[in-house]
């Protein structure tokens, strides 16, 4: 019986030893941000941009990532065309 208890105690201590350092260590946290939206690439076709956007958004959705995107270069033709096509949706 004692032996059984001591085995349990040892097991519990071992569990604590492996768990507590991990618990003591703060949870690492990161916020993901994307700059220069809509796209920065040598790809300049509407189809190319749509593909890059779809792939990025697919990964974000699959992993439920809360992301902030920072928008710029709104003067480029490609951006204007993307915004126009988006506003048609």
């Amino acid at each position, binding site marked *: 019986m004692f032996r059984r208890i001591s085995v349990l105690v040892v097991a519990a201590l071992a569990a604590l030893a492996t768990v507590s350092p991990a618990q003591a*260590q*703060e*949870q*690492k*946290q*990161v*916020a*993901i*941000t*994307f*700059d*220069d*939206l*809509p*796209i*920065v*690439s*040598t*790809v300049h076709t509407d189809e190319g941009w749509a*593909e*890059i*956007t*779809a*792939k*990025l*958004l697919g*990964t*974000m*959705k*699959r*992993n*439920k*990532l*809360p*992301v*902030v*995107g*920072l*928008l*710029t*270069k*709104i*003067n480029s033709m490609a951006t204007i065309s*993307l*915004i126009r096509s*988006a*506003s048609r*949706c």
Partner: protein
Amino acid sequence: MKAWLDAGLELGNHTFSHRSLHSTPLAEFQSDVLRGEKVLRELTKAKGAKLRYFRHPFLHTGRSLETRQAFESFLNTHGYTVAPVTIDNSEWIFAGAYDKARDANDPAAMARVAEAYIPYMESYFAHFENLSEKLFGRQIKQVLLLHANSINADHFGELVAMMKKRGYKFITLEEALTDNAYRSTDTTTGAYGISWIDRWALTRNVPAGFFKGEPRTPAFVLKLAGVEAG
């Protein structure tokens, strides 16, 4: 852009034409912010989405305290919060190399760049975790900077897996900014665009050795991208 909003992602202002506050007169720079806001307002209004974050192009925050403070009070007046970056990196160089390899129909070179990309980004996480520990004695809530480019379209999933493997939980920028680290003083006015961890450290006058160990971009990636150093 509607696709991003539809996906539940938040959009922020990064100016209309991505000029640097270090080389653009303040008044012009501010009107570039407001020009950018016009388009963003249309996009976010339709979705009932918030518009609250501003990020400095090139992470250039101003060459004098007067400019910095004047611009920050302008942002305040217009309802913006600065979106800082702690895990700054040169992912854009890998993206450039990846694009060039793709444009040259060289899938082997694309694969080499992609293969180096994930370990490179992981070394940046290790670097800023280390600086976070040295400066704050703990792991602060980090903010990662990436770009919407081809290499991330193809390999962002691997990057996410790497972060998970390092024990990261993904949080909103709003949540990250609740960390007291972001209340630290930053009086840097150098001709650079750097991590906020580096800025807080510089403001505290840490010895130069503090910054040691910043990862380097592999030479073959620099060469392929046509970039001098990174």
